[in-house]
């Protein structure tokens, strides 16, 4: 089970562009809205966030420091 992008359904306008660019099948259209499906191989390409005009999809990065 892998971490998935974050979807805010209240911002999603159902344009479906994110579904067309998703490389791993984590995003699917259910009726007129986008839903997330659990997949094992989301590579965090961030293309869904890139094409989302409403900001409904977010691919946040954890910022961590490795101490010397």
């Amino acid at each position: 089970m892998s971490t998935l992008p974050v979807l805010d359904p209240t911002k999603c306008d159902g344009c479906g562009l994110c579904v067309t660019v998703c490389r791993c099948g984590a995003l699917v259209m259910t009726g007129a809205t986008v839903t997330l499906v659990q997949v094992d191989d989301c590579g965090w390409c961030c293309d869904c966030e890139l094409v989302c005009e409403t900001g409904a999809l977010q691919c946040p990065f954890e910022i961590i420091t490795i101490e010397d």
Partner: protein
Amino acid sequence: MSITIENISILGYFKGVGADRLSSLLPLFGQRSFSKGQTIISEGESEQSLYFVGAGVVKIFKTSAEGKEQIIKITRPGESFNDIAVFSNGPSPYSAQALGTTTVVYLIHKNDLMPFMEKDWKAAQNALHVLADQSRLLLNLIEDLSFKNVMARVAKILLENSLHGAEGFQKLTQYEMAAMAGTAREVVGRSLKSLEDTGAVRLERHQIVIVNKDLLNQLAGLN
């Protein structure tokens, strides 16, 4: 599914142009489909058709001699590309690649488009608006890339927002970093890759790992 008057009437170039006028243009349009990752236009290619995205998404980008990519624009349904090559009589200044699973584009050759625009003031006026909007976007990108040391600002943002495991992880999207750095998301993506090239950070799926804090501080101009 073939192109219709309705498909054309929503394109920036043809908004407000009468359906009777558009019906004369319709047979001159071509339609092509591309699968994800397929190249539609290569930089330097002598392609003289104006393209419109019908469905899916098209990435417009330039590639350096070293293979580094700079995204110019993400083109969505209704938007055009290859305008510069068509109106300047030159080669395409950028590449275009299909991002969507099935990307559909409509295209019309300049030899068919120009006579139409010469007779239709509304279409010519629309073209000026589209090109002006594209010029503004390119100027903003030039400003970001030329005058702002975005890499230093992104380095500073990473340092200011990194926490250690015990404190929980701070999370930021590339859009949020762009807003904090006062730049475009496309520029942040490239800055992160540049920072990775220096060896200061490592990009790992949904993590940005600071592996050399001293170097990152130096790149951020903090010591």
